[in-house]
């Protein structure tokens, strides 16, 4: 479980995060939702320690992270896997070397043990036999998969994904979402995903935190989000015509159900 408390962050006098607090549960896909420029990625970077918050704290399973001793922060960081927006694969290394890298740097595993783990992770993300390919030879979806494989290779406890669907077609996006959800549940890890993709919200949003202008405006599950009464959230969700149609259909179905129930009661 990851707990954030009263996170504030400003850049050059401009407030990006304004007292964000919340709990991200283990074994669930926790989503940070919001429009571009609302501070989602900055919050994620504050949590993993890439950006130091001006105020506030982050706790990983009860261990204080922000401003703690360097070796404790390092210890926590070694349990973190992160999938970056652009995948951030090391250009000079092939797929196998990319996934092997954290194992080589962070564990005492032998070469053969590491190779077994690399092959297992590649198989887990559906990229068997891609060991020798260079990042430049991979498609966007494959890069994301390799990024996930690299993140989970050292048996991470916390998985962070910064817009895992950006630049992907809808089908590949769904596959990546499903993969992240499966991995989260299978290994019982705490996953935080930054997204503005409503498909992801509906498909895998076990717990959703909606950010607006650096503030947390709403928190709930994917089943509750469509019925929210927060104006900014509704504007965000229903900016898309598909979502408006979906909502209309859902409302109509609900109305029909209610009418049927009333008829049955009258009978």
């Amino acid at each position: 479980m990851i707990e954030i408390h009263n996170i504030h962050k400003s850049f050059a006098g401009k407030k990006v995060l304004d007292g964000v607090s919340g709990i991200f549960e283990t074994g669930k896909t926790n989503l940070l939702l919001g429009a571009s420029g609302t501070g989602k990625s900055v919050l994620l970077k504050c949590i993993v320690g890439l950006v130091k918050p001006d105020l506030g704290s982050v706790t990983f399973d009860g261990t204080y992270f922000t401003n703690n001793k360097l070796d404790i922060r390092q210890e926590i960081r070694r349990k973190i896997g992160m999938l970056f927006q652009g995948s951030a694969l090391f250009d000079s290394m092939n797929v196998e070397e990319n996934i092997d890298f954290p194992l080589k740097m962070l564990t005492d595993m032998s070469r053969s043990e590491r190779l077994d783990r690399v092959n297992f992770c590649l198989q887990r993300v559906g990229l068997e036999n891609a060991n020798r390919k260079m990042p430049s030879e991979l498609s966007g979806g494959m890069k994301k998969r390799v990024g996930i494989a690299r993140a989970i290779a050292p048996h991470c406890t916390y998985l962070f994904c910064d817009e895992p669907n950006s630049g992907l077609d809808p089908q590949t996006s769904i596959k990546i979402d499903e993969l992240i959800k499966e991995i989260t549940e299978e290994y019982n890890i705490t996953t935080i995903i930054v997204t503005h993709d409503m498909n992801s919200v509906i498909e895998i949003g076990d717990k959703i935190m909606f950010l607006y202008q650096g503030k947390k405006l709403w928190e709930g599950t994917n089943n509750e989000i469509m019925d929210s009464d927060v104006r900014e959230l509704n504007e965000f969700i229903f900016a898309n015509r598909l979502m408006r149609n979906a909502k209309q259909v859902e409302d109509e179905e609900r109305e029909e159900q209610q009418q049927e129930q009333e008829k049955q009661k009258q009978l």
Partner: protein
Amino acid sequence: MLQHFGKFVLFITSLFSRGESPRILFNRTIDEAILIGINSIFIVAIVATFIGAVTCVQIAYNLNNAFIPRSTIGFMVREMTILELAPTITSIVLAGKVGSSIAGGLGTMQITEQVDALEVMGINSASYLVLPKIVAALLVFPMLVILSMFLSIAGGYVAGTLSGELTAQEYITGIRDEFISYNVVFALIKSFVFAFLISSISSYRGYFTSGGALEVGAASTTAVTNSIIAILIADFVLAQVLL
């Protein structure tokens, strides 16, 4: 300016905090040494040979006096090569080639979040990426400067004898005349200092790149410009202090 200097000092200090294991750093240093060294041999060889040749021809052109022995041309080529041309010109060439490569590589890693990926893994990215580059440059630059000395003097020999400005015997007599071994030591000290300046300044510029492809290009250009200015200032200071 002062702000950059302070940030640079902090950056260099950060290379030595929470470093990776010596085995990993050793392997990375060897890789970097190959990249910096082997890939620069061709350009260093071409530049050194032609500079030696041009120096010889131009000295011969200016030294057209019956009272000055022709062997003086060889002597002057050697002195100029060892004291200035080999260490300084080679370093300026390397500032262009190696410096831009270091800044561009690190800048690209920074904007594509590869540096962040290292940090998230709990690895000191500055130490892991930059320290091996600096150590490799310190190892390889003196070797390239020594190679440059030999080729420059050889270039002078070929140009001088082929153009008929002086005989082979006169050139060899000249380059053996009043040889001061300290000058080679001085040249090697310069090459160490220049290696540090080029690799650290370029790394600093590349490591702190933010933005996109345009900024990576700008970082490379700034790295080369700053490195060359630093080389020229250091060249003067070292000459004042050590000669």
